């Protein structure tokens, strides 16, 4: 079996018999570069991943990285080809009720899971029901599926998903790997081991082995012939296998690309951007990221962040252009709004609203009664303008940005203390609201979901809205956005929301990142979703 597959692959990949022979007689220990060249000839894509994760089960994970791997193992119902645009995946067609509470999908009839069981409406139901089952402890998927009510199996290949309230972003969720369809038989059979030892979907690649914190091996699904129309072919994937190796240290990951140990790496350090861009044997992929860029949350429940002038002053005191130039090598762009420019409904006007103007910041503080003290730090009554900034030690850029912001704010008389805490201590502090400042950065493709995470009062008081911003108008606006399917109306609402949070100086938007990937010149045909999060290797070939 194995043998046939390999030969067949070699034929497809156009590798001659001579090359095969050469690779077989190659001595076991040679210059590693030559050894990798041999690996390439057999069609294995080695991928340098920036960190570990919790599980391989896309339903229960909280990691984007798991989505990156998982998208190869599961197929989504639909594919997203641009903001608000969708193409068939496992679903061939769909209809949406005007109030966005009922979605009906027609499914492909020729699809089988890796374990041989057929894909059908029941599988969709089981997958979605499992997401909302408390025992599953789903998180990312749980927030993507939103106000889910139930799934009805209309017939063997037709399924109807109902929501308790309007969920205009459901197709966006369904296009993400996290709502990818998993095999009910395998879930049933493996229980707690599902996602840990085995993970079964209908995708072009199958899980071969998983070694925690080390590597995930995927192997080509030999029966795959239901590639989505948006791709260049629909049969077997060209690659024989994909190996995701976890290489947390930035410099090391880059080194693996240079030595050829990795053919593809994620999270390319901006520092090395130029070098890679000009390297003749490497290709740099730069995709503006969907979601919410790097920003600063200001906790309104802790004085003096409850004072609008102080928050405004912070906005004007931070030199975003300088920040992206120094810390981000000008590869990130100064941010304007809680949404990145590629997001549906992004408001260009927001870029004109907040300018770097330290004098303006000083004036605002003076007017609010904060007078310069003897050491330059402002005081009001007995109180010094001392602010606590909580952050995690990694990524390193966290600390660089913080030092920059600290220096900026010092110029207008704010004394910022940096508290660098490991994950447990950090979350404890910010969930309890002991911070004045903390970072936020989020990837995603649905503006409604982003706005809810950042600004809805239901997420205040220990949730993700660590601005602890509570505003009924805002809540209503977000809920309207979520329930509105009409694009023009939806856009108008999203613009209003962005302007409102800037007028009320809820957060400071710092830098909009691109997703940076790099690969060897021999690799071609990499597809990345428009949000920049999921490099997909179905169309990918390796050519020497």
């Amino acid at each position, binding site marked *: 079996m194995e043998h046939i597959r390999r030969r067949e692959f070699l034929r497809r990949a156009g590798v001659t018999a001579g090359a095969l022979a050469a690779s077989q007689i190659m001595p076991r*220990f040679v*210059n*590693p*570069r030559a050894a990798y060249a041999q690996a390439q000839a057999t069609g294995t894509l080695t991928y340098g991943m920036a960190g*570990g994760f*919790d*599980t391989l089960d896309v339903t229960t994970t*909280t990691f984007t990285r798991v989505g990156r791997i998982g998208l190869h193992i599961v197929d989504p119902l639909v594919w997203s080809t641009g903001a608000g645009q969708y193409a068939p995946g496992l679903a061939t067609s769909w209809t949406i009720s005007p109030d966005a509470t009922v979605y009906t999908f027609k499914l492909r009839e020729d699809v089988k899971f890796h374990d041989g069981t057929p894909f059908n409406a029941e599988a969709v139901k089981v997958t979605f029901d499992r997401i909302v089952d*408390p*025992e599953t*402890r789903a*998180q*990312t998927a749980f*927030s993507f599926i939103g106000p889910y009510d139930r799934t009805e199996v209309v017939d063997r290949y037709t399924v109807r998903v109902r929501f308790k309230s309007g969920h205009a972003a459901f197709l966006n969720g369904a296009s993400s790997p996290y709502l990818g369809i998993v095999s009910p038989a395998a879930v049933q059979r493996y229980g*707690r081991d599902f996602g*840990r030892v085995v993970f079964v979907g209908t995708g072009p690649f199958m899980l071969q082995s998983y*070694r*925690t*914190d*080390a590597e995930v091996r995927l192997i080509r699904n030999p029966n795959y012939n239901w590639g989505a129309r948006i791709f260049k072919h629909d049969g077997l994937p060209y690659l024989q296998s994909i190996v995701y*190796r*976890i*290489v*947390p*240290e930035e*410099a*090391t*990951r880059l*080194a*693996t690309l*240079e*030595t050829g*140990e990795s053919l593809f790496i994620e999270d390319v350090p901006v520092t090395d951007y130029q070098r890679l861009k000009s390297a003749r044997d490497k290709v740099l992929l730069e995709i503006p990221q969907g979601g919410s860029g790097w920003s600063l949350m200001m906790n309104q429940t802790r004085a003096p962040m409850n004072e609008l002038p102080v928050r405004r002053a912070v906005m004007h005191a931070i030199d975003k252009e300088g920040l992206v130039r120094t810390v981000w090598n000008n590869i990130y762009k100064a941010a304007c709004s809680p949404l990145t420019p590629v997001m549906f409904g992004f408001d260009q006007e927001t870029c004109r609203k907040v300018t770097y103007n330290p004098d303006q910041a000083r004036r605002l503080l003076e007017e609010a009664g904060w007078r310069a003290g003897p050491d330059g730090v402002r005081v009001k009554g007995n109180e010094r303008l001392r602010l606590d900034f909580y952050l995690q030690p990694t990524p390193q850029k966290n600390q660089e940005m913080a030092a920059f912001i600290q220096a900026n704010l010092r110029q207008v008389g704010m004394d910022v203390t940096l508290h660098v805490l*490991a*994950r*447990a*201590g950090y*979350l*404890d502090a910010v*969930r309890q609201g002991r911070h004045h400042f903390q970072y*936020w950065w*989020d990837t995603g493709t649905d503006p409604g979901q982003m706005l*809810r*995470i950042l600004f809805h009062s*239901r*997420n205040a008081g*220990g*949730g*993700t809205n660590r601005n602890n911003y509570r505003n009924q108008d805002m809540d209503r606006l977000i809920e309207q956005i979520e329930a509105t399917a009409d694009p023009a109306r939806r856009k108008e609402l999203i613009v209003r929301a962005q302007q409102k949070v800037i007028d009320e100086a809820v957060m400071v938007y710092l830098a909009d990142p691109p997703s940076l990937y790099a690969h060897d010149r021999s690799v071609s045909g990499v597809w990345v979703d428009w949000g920049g999060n999921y490099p997909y290797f179905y169309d990918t070939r390796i050519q020497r």
Partner: protein
Amino acid sequence: MLQYLAKRLLLTLPTLLAVSLLVFLMLHLVPGDPAIIFFGDQPVTPERLEQVRRQMGLHRPLLVQYLDFLGGAMRGDLGRSIHNNTPVLEEVTSRIGSSAQLALAAFVVAGGLGLSLGLVSALRRSTWVDAAAMLMALGGVSMPIFWLAAMLIFVFSIKLGWFPVTGFGGWNRLVLPAFALGFVSSATLARLVRSSVLEVLWQPYVTTARSKGLRETLVVRRHVLKNALIAVVTVMGLQLGTLLSGAVITETVFARPGVGKLMVDAISAKDFPLVQGAVLFVALVYIVVNLLVDLSYAYLDPRIRFE
């Protein structure tokens, strides 16, 4: 001898018990709710938070949690990670191979370097050779390991292309991390070997051997080396635990899965069962290795007998 062994093994139990209790108490002093950490930056309602707390078994009194763990451990069940639901034993054992490989290779590097540098400098005492050897040994202990590791990668992987940067399996993937980790341990060892060799060189029995006309190389091999080995074995016994569990930086830089990294990650996630399992494992290895060290004294030094 057997009696001694039995006694030592029996003493292991209370130590392990104490270690597990200590870890348990210390971890509970660390601020942070595991359920909150579980949700991280994801949105969550208070109800769901409470639900996850219950699933993690955190609603039970501390004593009950500890006794439960202990009961499980007696039966060989270390429980499941509260975050990933994976069996702790599996999490630990899946990393032992890689950790042990690295620790042993580093051990060989440290032992080889330490022994040879120490021996050379002692035999050529107060010459430039002595100074050079000791300076080299000191060089190892004077460099933060992540710096050393980064430079090794730069020179030997990127510039020269001799060794792969990362990974496990295959001896050529082990060379750089083992050298980084071993080099730093070799300094202590080299100095120790040097002083213990110097000490022996003046012992009456060595002088006697020499005056009997034994060749210098034979004197060194027969009498001096053995004594130096005692020092090596002692220090390495003490260090093996650290090589095994404290290699977190080496593991991170060279992207190797390992017990050290597991432990650090588990602490930062407050994953009690996982931390406990890993610590117990490391403690056990430490105890066993040091027992072996003590036993090896009897072989290396005939004057030592166990009762």
